[in-house]
């Protein structure tokens, strides 16, 4: 229910703010008609806080909520071409399994400007439907505009599950929406399953020292942000198609209260981006100095991989933060992870333990990194790795 109190001053800001044309003036007071979706844009626009939305009675019937939704985050190349971030493929693959278990549809939610061409790719990763809001005002991510659109779409179609990537954007918007809708939201999940019809959300807490399974049994949709590079993506099936459902809004980019002044993307992260690399050679405190990291770099270059670093190595200034693997850095999931001179603090292990093959090299036979390694080499990486680099170069014939 939307309520407008007597303290309305008749400024009509809410009329301009409403993306659905549902607000109008009756005499000197604002009023909402049946087009209202309870999106809350007017509540934000009102200078005297006279508009309130109460939802508590509307979520009683959980069976009315159906469908697994995945919020698709896009980015753009240096030449301005939009693309779906890799985590979207992971979420659609995981969402496909959840939707099949529930016997419901898997839907991708795509917001942006000039993004319709990405629908086919979303279908190939399992989406049955693509809800599309393609609008010039949505060209750049903006909390206010994106939240307004998503809240309206969720209120209209009532999905049972909404998944977001646990990226800077996902973590900015998801709590805003959960709070607006008064629904449960679980942060930074590393596992998802269905338990008795509810979404079972697994996440690490206390810096990865402990795992927790979380349910949101009484509210819908059940929402979660999911860490990139943890869930496995399926192979795309280009024969699949999805129904595209276009949603139109009359959005005014000027109503966004936060303005973008400047954006700078790091084009060249030292030694390649670790979040998408299939081979990572990582160094820790044990590599001691720049010369130690030169050994790491050379092996990574020879194998065609990227260089990672433990927090200790980053703190020692041996590598920039962009190369840090772990809880406070980047979670990675390469096919091969070589950890050299890394003892294996739990914060590091949660960031790389999903890698397919882990090789650890450490002088200390009791180093915790050996607990997750498929191959545990007890020795000095400074002496071992240059020999490996030479042998690999020889094997490759260069």
């Amino acid at each position, binding site marked *: 229910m939307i309520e407008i109190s007597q303290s309305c001053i008749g400024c009509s800001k809410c009329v301009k703010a409403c993306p659905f044309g549902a607000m109008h003036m009756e005499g000197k007071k604002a009023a909402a008609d049946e087009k209202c979706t309870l999106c809350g844009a007017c509540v934000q626009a009102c200078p005297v806080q006279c508009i309130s939305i109460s939802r508590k009675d509307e979520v009683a019937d959980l069976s009315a909520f159906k469908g697994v939704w995945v919020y698709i985050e896009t980015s753009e190349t240096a030449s301005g071409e939009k693309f779906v971030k890799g985590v979207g493929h992971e979420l659609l693959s995981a969402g496909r399994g959840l939707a099949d278990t529930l016997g419901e549809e898997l839907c991708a939610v795509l917001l942006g400007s000039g993004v319709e061409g990405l629908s086919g790719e979303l279908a190939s990763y399992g989406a049955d439907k693509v809800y599309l809001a393609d609008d010039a005002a949505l060209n750049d991510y903006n909390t206010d505009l994106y939240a307004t659109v998503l809240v309206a779409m969720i209120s209209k179609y009532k999905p049972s599950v909404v998944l977001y990537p646990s990226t800077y954007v996902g973590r900015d918007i998801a709590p*805003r929406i959960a709070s607006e809708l*008064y629904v449960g939201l679980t942060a*930074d999940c590393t596992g998802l399953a269905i338990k008795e019809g509810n979404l079972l959300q697994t996440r690490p807490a206390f810096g990865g020292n402990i795992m927790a399974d979380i349910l949101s049994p009484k509210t819908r949709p059940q929402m979660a942000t999911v860490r990139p590079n943890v869930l496995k993506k399926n192979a795309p099936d280009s024969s699949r198609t999805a129904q595209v459902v276009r949603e139109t809004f009359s959005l005014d980019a000027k109503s966004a209260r*936060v303005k973008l002044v*400047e954006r700078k993307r790091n084009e060249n992260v030292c030694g390649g*981006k670790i979040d998408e690399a299939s081979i990572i050679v990582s160094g820790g405190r044990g590599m001691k100095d720049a010369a130690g990291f030169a050994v790491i770099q050379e092996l990574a270059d020879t194998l065609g991989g990227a260089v990672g670093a433990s927090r200790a190595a980053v*703190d020692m200034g041996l590598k920039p933060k962009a190369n840090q693997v772990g809880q406070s850095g980047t979670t990675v999931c390469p096919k091969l992870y070589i950890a050299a001179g890394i003892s294996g603090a739990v914060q590091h292990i949660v960031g790389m333990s999903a890698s397919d093959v882990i*090789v650890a090299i450490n002088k200390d036979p009791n180093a915790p990194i050996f607990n997750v390694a498929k191959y545990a080499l007890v020795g000095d990486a400074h002496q071992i790795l240059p020999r490996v680099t030479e042998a690999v170069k020889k*094997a490759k014939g260069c």
Partner: protein
Amino acid sequence: MKIAVCIKQVPDSTQVKVDPKTGTLIRAGVPSILNPYDHFALEAALALKEKNGGEVIVVSMGPSQAKSVIRLAQALGADTGILLCDRVFAGSDTWATAYALSRALRKIGKLDLIICGQMAIDGDTAQTGPAVAQMLHLPQITFCEKIDVRNRTLRAKKHIDDGFEVLEATLPVLCTMTMPHDYKPKYPSFPAVARSEAKPFELWTAQDVGAEEQYCGLNGSPTRVDRVYAPPQRKPGAVINGSAAELADRLVEILKKECFVK
């Protein structure tokens, strides 16, 4: 300028261990600290006060022991401390925490800026800040590294996945702060600690801030913890010993066997 900083007392997660048998946290002997992100947020607020004048109010929700982090914040320069402390808040998830905090912030009133740490190191959710912003219908800028205010316009440098953005908004705004990886929190001098004892401190209950019980604590929280357990251990693999030359040979064999080198 009137600035509120939301802070939390947390166990020092770098010292938390898990009981391998029961899967529960061993908290005994683990010191409580001011959440480091909140510490950084407080320093950002104090720097703005230094530059633009005004006052800094710290707000925390927690048990009565949490008074110690409020006193620490006051010793560092915060003017007023408020502790939301009530049994009905127990078991709050991020939604219910944000609800209680937003009620308290509303009661303080006329705030120009609310600053939160991006997340608490015990929960790592980063959800409470944006949830508070929504409940107060404020614009938000999350994961800020640096903030500055000039003529009622806030300019923030914030992190994005592959770089940074500079954003602007007119006050009032809510910001959440990330921190540099080499951040070392400042601690107050002894005389500053002594002086902080005289600064205003208030204890507020749910009733004081007009928080409705149905939205508070465990009952008001949409999420439920189903189970807590120690992280699953990956099965340890083969331990290989030998000279550097032997180990290098073995590693090359492994790379060939796993098809990373052909």
